[in-house]
Structure formats: C-alpha cells, structure tokens
C-alpha cells in the first residue's frame, strides 16, 4: 500500500547525468526525507517517482508493480508542490474537490470527502475563499487537503514549507508529522532544511550530486555520519571539521567534533583559543573560537548564562566519545 522501489534509476537531461544509477527502497508507511544541497537532484528524484519526468534508465516499482512507464495520474500518488500549485481561479472547496471530480466521483461523495478533509486540516471556515485570499500556512493546508482526499498510496512533498516564515514552518512541521502518524501513509519529503529532516523523518536520504551519500534514521546520521559530507551536512550548527596535525594525532585525515560536544573547561583543556564573535540566543550561546593551528574557527555551544567576552582566552575539551574520524577518502573510520 505504498512501497516504492527504485532500481538502478538513472536520469540524464540531454548529456548531463543528473542522477547516476541509484537504488532505493521506501517501505510502506515510512516518512522518508531527501536532503542535500541545492541542485543535488532532490526534486528530480521526486519527480521521477511522481512520473512527472521520464527515467532515462532503470525501473520504478510501486507496491511491487512496474510503474516506470505509467502516467502520473495512474500511479496513485499525490504531490504537494513547493509553490503549492493551487488553482487560483477555484475556491478552496473546488481545489480540494478537483482530483475527486477528475476521478468521476458523485457530488455527494465529493462533498463528504472534502468536508472531512477540511475538518482534519481546520479549513472549514475558508472553503469558499480563493487561494489568493489565504495566508501561506492556509494555502499549504489546502495543498495538503487536495492530496489527502485522493487517499493516495504515498504522498510526495517538494519543499512544502520553504515559502513559509519561521514560526509557521514550525507549526506546519508538527502538523505534517501528526498527519503522518494519523494516516500512516508513506511520505516522501524533499527539503534542504536539515531541522525539518531531523525532526520529521523516519529515514533520511542524504543526496549529493545525484548520489546517495547515506540512508538512515536521523539519529544514525547524527551519531555516525558515513563520511565528511554527511557529517558537515547534518547537525546545526555545523560539525567542526579539523584537518592537519591535530587530525593526524587521531590517525585520521580529518576529525570532527560538534559544537555541542565541546566543553569549555576552566584552567586547562585540550585546545586553547580566543573568543571571537559570540551569539547569545538566551537559551544557548554560540562562540566562535580561534584556535592556533586550525584553519577555521571552532564553533562552541554553551549555555545561555555563560559569560565570555570578545578576546577572552578559553580552553576547550572535546568529548572523546563524540569525536568523529575520517580517512583520506572522507569515509568514517569506525
């Protein structure tokens, strides 16, 4: 009821191979998030699954049957677009009803389903408005409503929250997570916001230049990034990556330590540095510390009440259990 398998799927636009052959299994009911830097092929991959692009090679199976050549409307998937792609000339009700109308349902059935969806999404009072009269979050909900009513075997989301402001984003993030819990339908979700990825996903797929760098649960990726790319990409603020003699001490090409795993120690510590800019968030403070011999300043997370000032000298000690080591190929050394 929502198992999607990609088998050696390859995509080239003309001569440019955007996605080299790639295998992926998405299990029924899973919430899978594709993350990766801009232009890495996230949207393309999603559109291949949707059928909005033709695969160049390989096979896409949905629930075991070959869907590679099926038209988008036949795949039983629903998609929520970044721009929401609402139909501007139709009321919210009509927008949500559109897929049902296309499926040839009777007006009664349509009404029932639309009302049910509107209730779930708290859209009751907006049903007769046009999309242009809605706020960003409401539009987003309409787009989801349009997807829900079809009872698809899987939902595809392409950066659905990127047009919303920060506060709304947090709210909608929770709503989508809850929706997933409630419907237990497969969801494939594209984002480049790693907070979204971490908080929503059952399984994260990290993409880089069309290649899968790592697949795993959010915490797997956080705890054991398979390579330098994933290490740098997952976690906020970014993991500090240190090369050179310091790394060599640990028999590695590169070592990595997250800001939250660096302790500010009184008196003595592993490293000594000078405090640069500090960012006080109230709950936390991020210090940028320049350590002699390191190429880039280290970011250190401390509590909200720590008082250190520009130019202070401090001592830092990494949590050895949380030290990541990578070899010359950038791969994790276990």
């Amino acid at each position, binding site marked *: 009821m929502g198992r999607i398998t990609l088998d050696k799927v390859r995509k080239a636009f003309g001569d440019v191979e955007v996605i080299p052959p790639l295998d992926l299994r998405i299990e029924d009911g899973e919430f899978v998030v594709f993350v990766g830097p801009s232009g890495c092929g996230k949207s393309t991959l999603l559109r291949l699954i*949707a059928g*909005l692009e033709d695969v160049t090679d390989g096979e896409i199976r949905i629930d075991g049957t070959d869907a590679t050549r099926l*038209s*988008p*409307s036949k795949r039983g*998937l*629903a*998609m929520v*677009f*970044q*721009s929401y*792609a*609402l*139909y*501007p*000339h*139709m009321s919210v009700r009509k927008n949500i009803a*559109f*897929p049902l109308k*296309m*499926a040839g349902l009777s007006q009664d059935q349509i009404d029932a389903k639309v009302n049910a969806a509107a209730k779930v999404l708290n859209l009751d009072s907006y049903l007769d408005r046009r999309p*242009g009269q809605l706020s960003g979050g409401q539009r987003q909900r309409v787009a989801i409503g*349009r997807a829900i009513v*079809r009872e698809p075997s899987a939902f595809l989301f392409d950066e659905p929250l990127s047009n919303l402001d920060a506060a709304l984003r947090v709210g909608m993030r929770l709503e989508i997570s809850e929706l997933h819990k409630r419907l237990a339908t497969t969801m494939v979700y594209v984002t480049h916001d790693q907070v979204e990825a971490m908080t929503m996903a059952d399984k994260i797929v990290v993409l880089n230049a069309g290649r899968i760098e790592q697949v795993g649960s959010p915490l797997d990726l956080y705890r054991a990034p398979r390579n330098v790319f994933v290490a740098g990409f997952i976690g906020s603020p970014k993991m500090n990556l240190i090369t050179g003699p310091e790394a060599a001490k640990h028999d590695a090409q590169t070592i990595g330590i997250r800001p939250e795993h660096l302790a500010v120690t009184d008196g003595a510590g592993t490293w000594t540095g000078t405090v640069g800019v500090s960012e006080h968030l109230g709950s936390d403070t991020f210090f940028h510390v320049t350590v002699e011999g390191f190429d880039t300043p280290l970011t250190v997370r401390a509590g909200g009440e720590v008082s250190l000032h520009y130019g202070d000298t401090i001592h830092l000690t990494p949590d050895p259990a949380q030290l990541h080591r990578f070899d010359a190929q950038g791969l994790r050394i276990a």
Partner: protein
Amino acid sequence: MATQHSRSAARVMMAPAVFLLLVWMLVPLILTLWFSTLDYRPMRGTFDCCEGLGNYTRFVTSSAFLSSVVTTLQLVGGVLLITVIGGILLANLLDQPIWGQGVVRILVIAPFFVMPTVSALVWKNMFMNPVNGLFAHLFKAFGLQPIDWLSQAPLFSIILIVSWQWLPFATLILLTAIQSLDSEQMEAAEMDGAGPLSRFYHMTLPHLARSITVVVLIQTIFLLSIFAEIYVTTGGAFGTRTLTYLVYQRVIESQNVGLGSAGGIIAVILANIVALVLMRVVGKNLDA
C-alpha cells in the same frame, strides 16, 4: 511610496498627458456638438443656426441607423469570436513542441503589420474576386461554382479580412499568457488525474481569462472604428454599413456635416456604452 512629495510630483507628471487628452477630446467634441445643431451643408453653402435636435432625430430615425448599429455589433462580435477562439487554439498549438517554432510565429504575426487598406485591397482583388481571384480559381479547380464573396457573403467576408488582421494580435497575447501558466499547476492537475482536455478546460482557459479580457477590450476599441476594410471592399453596400461608415457617408458623401456630426456624437455615446458594458462584464478580470 506615497509621500506628500511624490503625490504632488505625480500630479505634475500626469498633467501633460491628461491635459492633452482632454483638449484632444473636448475641442473637437465641442465643435462637433456645435455643428450637430447646425444646418451645415457646405455643398449648399448653408451654415445656419439652430436645427436644435433636428439632426439627431433625423439621424436616429433614418432607416439606416438601426441596421448600422446591428451591423457594427455583428462585425465586432464576429471578429472577436473568430480571433479569440482562433487565437486560443493557435496559441495552444504554438505552445506545443514543434520544429521551427520561431519561424511559424513570424508567419502567424505577419498580417498584423499589414496596412488595413492593403489587406483589404489584396483580399478583395486577389482572393475574393469571383473571376480572377484565387478562391475562384480554387473553386473552379474543384469543379465548384465560384462564390462572389463580397456580394453573397459580404459581412462574413469583411469579418474574415478583419479577423485575418487581428488574429495575430490575439494569438500573441494568448500565447504569452499560456506560456506564463505555472507549470507546477499543470503538473498538479496531471497528478490529480486530469487529462489533456480537462487540463485545457479547467486550467488553461481560466488562466487565460484575463488575457482574453484584454484582447476583447483592445480589439473592441479598434474594431468599432473599422473603416478602410469596408470602404475598399463593399463601400458599405449589402448590409455592411457600420455606424462609423454611416457617419462617413453623411459627412463625406452627402456632405451634410450637421447630420454627420450628430451621428458622430451618437456613435461616441454608443461606443462608450459598449465600453462601459464591457468594463462591467469583463473589467473585473482586469484587476485580479
């Protein structure tokens, strides 16, 4: 944006255009209004005061008036129908992937550049002439009796000629509009199970509403004053006399300036009524 400063600047900057247009509208209009109350027939040497509303009653009650209004509406309506429908279809076709799209577009645009007089002359003589015209040759080649377009289907022929000139305009505007249709919206509709026809009906057409409005508005303004095409082809005979043409006949052919001026004023009033109706009916599309 709107500070005191910029508002007063705006007033100053609008002034020349508004002033000129006001003068351009009012001076001839007032003169025309004045003439329309006179018995002004240069050929009789009369320039006499005080016909009152006589010219108006004569113009309106003359047998030609009502039919000219109907003809005007038929002409404008017919051309709008052909160009809008044709424009939508053609724009959709040109939006498809085709080889040599640029060249085809050039071919389609070309009639828009042709002077109305020239196009009427060419169509009348070289195509619609029942003996030497190309259509006649064509009909004969198929063993058919050539049609005398300009007397058997005069209004239709003129509509055809005018449509030929304005189809490019409609097509261009609608094509640009179609190309601005958000592709994600189309994809969403496709995901929602809409076939090509449904997509056309439910997505493309509503998206085009605004552009169609613009086409209708602009074309109506120009079509109401169509002149050369009628002048060259039928000279207003066979029920092709529009209101504009009737005024022309009164002013130029009968040299009855008073009567013609009254007709002109009536034409202005009617045109503005049409415009108002148009704004009411379609105008709200403009301000989406």
